[in-house]
């Protein structure tokens, strides 16, 4: 197959549909929180982010995207350990109540997240104790969900940035690669924003093959800045913007 690394379509406007895949692997987030509580000499203080802080960055990012263009659409999908689900779709109308300090959309997101997590926990049939680094979230599942959604909408100019922290699960390799190639065929760039300690080979390959951006932010405090300056760029602008590239791509099949 062709390994064209950039879509050759000319985008005539800067409307975009963004599907964000958020990694909600509780083991990863809990362990990173525990690690930050530990002797901080071994870790960079900014190398870990608590989940709440993450949400603090991601939710404004989604709102800002909606601000960029009237026709932009944002979809949020979470990747759990046992399941994945659509959390939020900006096209959805409906009366929401702003609860307290939190704006309406945000509260909806949070509510849904909670529901998802409880469901996920119930679905889990694994052992009660697990080593955090060995539990991977279902990337392939969420990628497939995202791609199906996009196909249904069938709009040009869709992207998915994915904040992701947990390690790659080798059992998902084939499924993930399938999803990546589908994305490549449909000319959907996959951007990846990786938090956590290691690079992710899957996401590197995904971004490389589909022509997206791969980024491992150095300063996690400024995550929002990273998101809005790199990942918010629409596809039309990417033809004349220079975005950060990784030094090399790890092509190994894990």
């Amino acid at each position, binding site marked *: 197959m062709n390994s064209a690394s950039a879509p050759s379509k000319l985008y005539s406007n800067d409307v975009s549909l963004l599907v964000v895949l958020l990694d909600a692997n509780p083991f990863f987030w809990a362990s990173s929180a525990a690690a930050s509580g530990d002797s901080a000499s071994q870790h960079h203080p900014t190398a870990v982010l608590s989940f*709440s802080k993450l949400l603090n960055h991601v939710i404004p990012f989604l709102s800002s995207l909606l601000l960029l263009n009237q026709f932009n659409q944002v979809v949020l999908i979470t990747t759990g350990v046992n399941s994945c689900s659509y959390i939020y779709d900006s096209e959805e109308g409906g009366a929401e109540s702003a609860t307290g300090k939190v704006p309406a959309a945000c509260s909806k997101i949070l509510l849904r997240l909670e529901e998802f997590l409880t469901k996920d926990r119930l679905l889990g049939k694994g052992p009660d104790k697990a080593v955090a680094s060995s539990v991977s979230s279902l990337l392939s599942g969420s990628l497939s969900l995202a791609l199906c959604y996009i196909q249904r909408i069938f709009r040009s100019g869709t992207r998915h940035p994915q904040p992701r922290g947990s390690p790659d699960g080798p059992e998902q390799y084939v499924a993930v690669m399938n999803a990546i190639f589908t994305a490549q065929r449909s000319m959907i760039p996959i951007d990846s924003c990786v938090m956590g300690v290691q690079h992710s080979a899957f996401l590197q390959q995904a971004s490389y093959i589909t022509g997206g951006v791969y980024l491992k932010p150095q300063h996690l405090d400024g995550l929002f800045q990273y998101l809005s300056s790199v990942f918010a760029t629409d596809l039309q602008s990417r033809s004349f913007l220079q975005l950060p590239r990784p030094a090399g791509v790890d092509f190994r099949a894990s």
Partner: protein
Amino acid sequence: MAVITMLAKYKTTVKEPGIPGVLKMMEDVFSFTPNDPRSAKKLKVDFRNIKGHKFSKDGSKQALLNLTQVPEKGGGYIFEFNNFADRNVCRDFVGKVLGKFQTLTSEQTDQPSSGKVTASEKATASIEQLSTKEMEHRMKLLREDSELQKLHKELVFGNVLTESEFWATRKALLDDDSDRTLKQRTGFKSAMLADIRPSTDGQTNKVTFSLTPEIIHQIFSEKPAVHRAFLNFVPVKMTEKDFWTKYCRAEYLHRTKNSVAAAAEAAEDEELAVFLKHDDILANEARRKIRRVDPTVDMVADFSDDYIHLSVHGILQDGNKETIDSENDFAKRTLAHDVNRHATVVLEGRALDIELRDTRAVAEALARSKEASSVDTSDENANLGRQERAVRMTELEDLQASHSLPYASLCIKDPREYFDFQQVNALKALGGTGSRTIDYSLNTEDAYYYLLQQISEVKLQGVHNPVVQSDTALKVLTGLTQQISSTRYNLGKNPQESVLDRFPKRTKDEIMLHWMSIQELLRHFWSSYPITTAYLYNKVLRLKSAMADIYQKLKAIKDVQSDFRHQISLLIQPMLQSLDAAFAHYDAEEHKHSTKNGARLNGFVQ
């Protein structure tokens, strides 16, 4: 620059005996003082007024050097020397000085002094232009190659290298050019020279034909029968002059259409008849060509090539349309015949490359070349080859089987990606991941509980305002910018681009110039060792000071703060290293030399 003092005789024309005296040449002026103090012919002339110099060939009667002046003043100064060696020394000196002046003023036009010598100049007292030609040549090279010119200016005018040293290493450049100009083959003129019209003298009954070697060459090429006749008759049966007289007579008769007179003369003189008959060689050739025609319609020849035997269609020469008696089997050459034959010969190209001096030589050379070419054509293998080709070309495509085989197209990936991948692995091996991960074993319940807690925390607190601190944001942006503009990611991606191209133009030019100067200086430096003469020693000193200058300049470039500092220092490093090696060698030699001298002086071994 040296000063040359020589005994010479000054004269204004070649024929004069000349006034003996002393000629002194300095850097920018030359003077002549006659031996006889009473004589008024003292000279002191600035070289700027001298445009060029001419000199007589080595071995001719007088050893002359003629310094020609600016065209407005006209004339020149002629000096006669006692021997050619003296004259040559002066000549070289003058040439050098003039060359220096010419490059200073950077004249574009050819020197007016280099009188163009045509090939037909007589040999006695000939004036050769070799040295000026060389000077011109050098100037042309300098003009064409601006880098060479810059190098030349820097080194020669900085008194680091002399002109001769500079060009000594570039003999290849100088020689190549002259070879090239000779190689171009000139063809025949397309004007029909062989159609010679005589000049008639109105008063007497003489008709004058003028033949030059060029015309003769053409005649031989176009009329092989005449060529054969020449080879056979001259000098056995008649002299060359007679031969040409007969030929011209035949031409004249043909032209005047006086067929009766032609027949009469031919009967008398059988040699003349040769010229009037059909050119049978041509006829043979035409027949042979027709036999060889490729049936696959390769139009090498067809029947009308044998145009001599065609019935008369065309206009006869001189526009006369009358039909000629068929009993005369003399060649009924029409204008079309002649033009066609001439065109064929011109297109075939010139068989000989030699200069035309002697008719006999021309004829023989032509005969030799014809022999060579005829051997090739009458080859059996050639016939077979032709037949095979005919068969191949008559292939009927409809009846062939289809050639399309199923194939899989290659998918060739860019090999550079492999190297990128290796780099990532290398980074990983170096510990690019940072700190070691510590594995925690967690309770599932706890993990989920933690997450839910986090979410409710957000619910309570709401989203922070501002989302990001301004200084953090600034840090992020600068980090991103550096990462994007870093050259690490651009190297090796584009095969057409080189690192040099990414520098600003001025830096690039500077570095290139320094590089070329260093090459030149080092070449001369290393070739001067071992030092045997004082001249070499001085040269090495000069080179060393120039190298020290460049060394300083390179260091300054290296220290300049810029985006490309790393690349520039990588480029400059080998240059500095080579200069360091040269300096070290020089110091070592100096030390050796001084200890040797010291030992000799004191007589003790230190």
